[in-house]
């Protein structure tokens, strides 16, 4: 999932300081799961900013709603009536949701309440970690299911480097050396020979180096 974290309340309040009526829009997708922008978090943020504004003698009329997803146009079409009268929309979605709202509601001030952090998963309740580097061409079958692109601090493809000591990365003693993990797992699986295979140079144009990307499945596209 996409993992995000809420910005400080004062920072969000500053973005809408000149607005009188605001829609706080949560997202029931990834940010609900990572407890950053779901229904509960949306209500808490709206309540906190309403209180702050009241204390500043600048009352705010805040309404809240949580979309099924903000990254699918069909789910934000349904909020037209909520958006109509507001001065601004505070989106508690990832950066995708904020942009979809800004595209649909061209005359509205749309601001992000979250910092979108990474693609990852939960370790325990309340702790998430980065797991995927979105490189566009998965190589996990060659690395024992451990991603060197994002879990190696240098994203190197032929590690470990000289900074690997006792299984830890030199950048932080709490960071495992991804290549040590890869080596240990491949050895346990009896597949060390796979690491000896010569690999072609990675095509980084399939990652961000190629500019903004698109994914297409023509067989499911609906002709108008």
């Amino acid at each position: 999932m996409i993992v995000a974290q809420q910005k400080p309340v004062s920072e969000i309040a500053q973005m809408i300081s000149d607005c009188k009526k605001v829609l706080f829009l949560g997202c029931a997708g990834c940010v609900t799961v990572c407890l950053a922008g779901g229904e509960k978090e949306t209500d808490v943020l709206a309540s906190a900013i309403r209180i702050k504004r009241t204390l500043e003698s600048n009352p705010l009329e805040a309404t809240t709603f949580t979309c099924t997803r903000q990254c699918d146009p069909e789910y934000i079409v349904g909020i037209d009536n909520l958006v109509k009268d507001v001065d601004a929309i505070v989106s508690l979605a990832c950066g995708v949701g904020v942009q979809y709202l800004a595209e649909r509601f061209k005359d509205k001030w749309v601001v992000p309440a979250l910092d979108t952090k990474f693609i990852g998963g939960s370790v325990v309740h309340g702790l998430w970690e980065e797991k995927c580097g979105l490189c566009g061409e998965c190589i996990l079958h060659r690395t024992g299911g451990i991603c060197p692109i994002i879990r190696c601090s240098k994203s190197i493809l032929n590690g470990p480097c000289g900074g690997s000591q006792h299984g830890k990365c030199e950048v932080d003693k709490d960071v495992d050396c991804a290549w040590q993990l890869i080596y240990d797992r491949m050895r346990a699986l009896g597949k060390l020979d796979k690491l000896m295979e010569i690999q072609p140079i990675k095509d980084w144009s399939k990652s961000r180096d190629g500019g903004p990307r698109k994914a297409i499945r023509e067989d499911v596209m609906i002709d108008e």
Partner: protein
Amino acid sequence: MPEFEPKIVAFCCRYCAYTAADLAGSMRLQYSPNIRVVEMPCSGTIEHGLILSTFEKGVDGVYIAGCNLGDCHFLKGNVRAIKRVAAVKKILDEIGLGGERLEFFHVPASEGTKFAQVANEMTERIRQLGPSPLNKNAAGNAQKEGGQTA
């Protein structure tokens, strides 16, 4: 001017503080009449949003009363409540209402006197802090709001 009488909401776990309130009554203990007790199935059922919306309604103080550590009927509800209270205190500090208006207390079921003591302690604390700026019925705030009174 009459002394400010705070309005305080006490969210009380039914397995400890709420039972202690009953005991305090049976013991004929006198405690502050400023608190409004809300029975909770466990202190761990408290939510950030509920605390904030309670303040939004104009109460001057809120506290959550749960079991002693290790005594929670649901094992760790009180531990979770303590963490949530700490998080909401931070929000209250950040937005200017002040985290000191919120507190967590351990009140075992067998300690009616502790229940009364906590009620008095919180009332005194809030009385010192003065009315919440969101309390439209408090004398000072009513004037700011244009003479609105209770």
